[in-house]
């Protein structure tokens, strides 16, 4: 059985008249088991479904196409026997490459034979036509829906190009998929749009990244599928209770990546909001919760938030966020290390994204300022990976001051890698 533990990091002391409480809540899951197995524990009746979606548009060069096929086959090898699965090939429209059925259940049960058949179907892929990601997502949704026993739905999507559909068409497809299946997205090469794929991944509770070279695809797909198979907890909801009269300022996931969850709130009860978190494996996720309370007299203590994780209706762990008003400035002046760290990391993410957007728009001055601030924040918060990526895009004159110059020539893959990785955070060194 999966076990969850919530740990709260905060400075609960507020000065006289203070209203805003910030806390980092780490939720750790152990003993998650294998995707789809927890319900019954018997092979063949898995509730997990996996769909591999591979771009087979004409833009996929020979090397990329071969790399994608190899990667898709490597992913098949990671899918646990008994799991329901399908393979979709995507161009201007989507077609179900495996299993080859016209109607009825469109997910095969994984075993040695179906793995072999799917593998051979993948090897037939030929690159031609355009890119219509919306139609791929819609077909994935229909395929999942054809097997109602599958309740944990996950897809991997690989593309190498910009979406050819009207933006509204893609948005509508994303909306239909949101809350129904999760999707990790990968872009091959440098001809795809980070913003586009990030929109898909964020809505579908997945990750987004660049695979610059075809030789890296296999390992990337294997890792994604391994992670998906390790998610023995099909779905969990983050819940935030706040007292009557209080206002939840925001709820953000801050590790392993930054995701603002505030807009995804659904009402659990008048004082409690629910936020989707998708499936869980053995992992830790950090959430930053900010609550505004009516100020109370010095000396008063109260609960500012209950931060819970719920599986269905069962609350499996809870962290208590507190507020205590004090006129001891030694207590109230301190900002919790975790809160400060993640506040910096969130700003880092937006500085990178805004800086790169300004650079793309030809606004060199804004780009220099924002990326300079990003360099400064990466150093302050000890995010060495971000520092390395930033230094491929800017020349750093003074890291501490954030003084940088935009590089004359930048490898596009480096710039895209900086963009896709902008939301990745590092944890504080404890």
């Amino acid at each position: 059985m999966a076990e969850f533990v919530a740990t709260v990091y905060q400075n609960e002391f507020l000065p006289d008249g203070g209203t805003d409480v910030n806390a980092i809540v780490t939720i750790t899951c152990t003993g998650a088991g294998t995707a789809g197995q927890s319900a019954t524990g018997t092979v063949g009746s898995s509730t997990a479904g996996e769909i591999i979606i591979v771009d087979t548009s004409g833009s996929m060069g020979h090397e990329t196409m071969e790399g994608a096929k190899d990667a898709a086959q490597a992913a098949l090898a990671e899918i646990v026997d008994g799991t329901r699965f399908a393979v979709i090939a995507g161009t201007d429209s989507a077609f179900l490459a495996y299993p080859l059925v016209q109607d009825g259940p469109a997910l095969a049960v994984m075993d040695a034979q179906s793995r072999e058949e799917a593998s051979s179907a993948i090897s037939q892929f030929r690159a031609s036509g355009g890119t219509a990601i919306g139609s791929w997502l819609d077909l994935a949704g229909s395929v999942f829906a054809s097997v109602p026993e599958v309740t944990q739905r996950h897809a991997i999507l690989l593309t190498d190009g910009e979406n050819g559909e009207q933006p509204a068409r893609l948005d509508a497809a994303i909306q239909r998929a949101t809350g129904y299946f999760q999707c990790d997205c990968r872009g091959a090469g440098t001809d795809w749009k980070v913003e586009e794929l990030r929109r898909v991944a964020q809505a579908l509770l997945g990750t987004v990244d660049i695979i610059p070279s075809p030789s890296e695809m296999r390992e990337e797909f294997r890792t994604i599928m391994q992670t998906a198979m390790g998610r023995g907890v099909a779905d969990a909801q983050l819940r935030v209770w706040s007292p009557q009269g209080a206002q939840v300022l925001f709820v953000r996931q801050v590790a392993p990546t930054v995701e603002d969850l505030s807009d995804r709130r659904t009402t659990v009860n008048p004082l409690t909001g629910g936020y989707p978190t998708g499936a869980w494996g053995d992992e830790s996720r950090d959430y930053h919760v900010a609550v505004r309370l009516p100020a109370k007299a010095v000396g008063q203590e109260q609960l500012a938030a209950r931060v819970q994780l719920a599986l269905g209706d069962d609350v499996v762990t809870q962290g208590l966020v507190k507020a205590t008003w004090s006129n001891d400035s030694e207590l109230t002046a301190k900002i919790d290390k975790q809160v400060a760290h993640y506040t910096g990391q969130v700003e880092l993410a937006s500085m990178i994204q805004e800086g790169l957007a300004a650079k793309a728009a030809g606004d060199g001055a804004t780009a220099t300022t924002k990326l300079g601030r990003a360099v400064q924040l990466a150093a302050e918060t000890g995010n060495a990976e971000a520092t390395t990526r930033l230094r491929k895009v800017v020349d750093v004159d003074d890291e501490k001051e954030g003084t940088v110059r935009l590089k004359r020539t930048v490898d596009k893959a480096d710039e895209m890698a900086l963009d896709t990785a902008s939301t990745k955070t590092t944890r504080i060194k404890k």
Partner: protein
Amino acid sequence: MTEPRTCPSCGAAAPGESNFCEECGTALSADVLVSGAPTTPAPEAGESSPIEDMDSGPISSATTNHSATAAQESAAPVACASCGGSIGPDGYCEQCGVKALSPRDHFREQPAPWVAGVCDKGIRHHRNEDAMATSASPDGTARDRRAVLVVLDGVSNTDDSQVGSLAGAKAALAALTVPFPDGLGTDGSRVAAVTHVLTNAVKAAQAEVVAAATPEAANPASATFSAAVLEGDVVSFANVGDSRSYWLPDSSPGVQLSVDDSAAQGLIAAGMPRAEAESSPQAHAITKWLGQDSEEPTPTVGQLRITEPGWLLVCSDGLWNYASEPAQLVEQIRRTGTDDPAALALALTDYAYGQGGQDNITTVLARIPGPVLVHNADPTPTSKEQPHG
């Protein structure tokens, strides 16, 4: 015969006469201590008293619950004292978030309308090692009025001080509930008789504090002791350590009755100004206390005759740390502007909270509406002397 009981919180076996678990301090019966049904009215929502239970921790320390129900406080009241909402299994109100009062961490007593006390954990400490016990005759204006005010302050960093202090306070109260003997009828023998009773009360408390720890305990429970007994117009008082009694009349300067057994008091006696002495590094080191490592602690005792209306206060250092001079206490009393001892005890606890609440806070008060007996040519002496033997 009482049924053998177990603690609802930790499951430890509980002797029939104890009101709190000796293991974890959880209240075992609601009839002695006031929690969900305070004898003083709960503050109105909106202007609620800050005297809620606190659980402070160091900055950046992590708090972890393994499950939603891990922080069970089985003795917590069912309804929120602040808004009337229900209390969650985590011990907080499910509507307004106020922490439910734990009966050992905050309790109130009011044996009669003119006597009341509040014993509270404060902000910084993790448990309430202070204790109090009170009794009073119904009418504070009657000639035969009698009130007993007892405060024990369990020393932190010792084992089970919260158990020893409470048991000690109750034992002392029991020893002080019978009217004082008159001795041979002379003033001198009357004082000696009262001193004997007060010394016996200290002995009774000492026995309980000693019993709270096992003989091999590394840090056996220890506590201070301060008691004041009003009988008619005479206050008799005794103390060991640095818990205090004060007489704070309405229109004359107040006086501290007790004399601390502390390093600071030693410095004051040697001529250092009080403020300086009480802020010196070793100021809070007490030189006498109750406990295993203190053999036969003898109290400093004294008597005072009441001649005007005022307040009799017995308190722990959690209060007087923020108002040591009688005039400072009188100032806080004036600000409150109440004649109700329960309201004043809460207000003074509030005041200590506002100042930082660094220690457990115990405030026990008797409102004395003036003398009730007629005396001729009595010089109202304040005598302080060590008991004999």
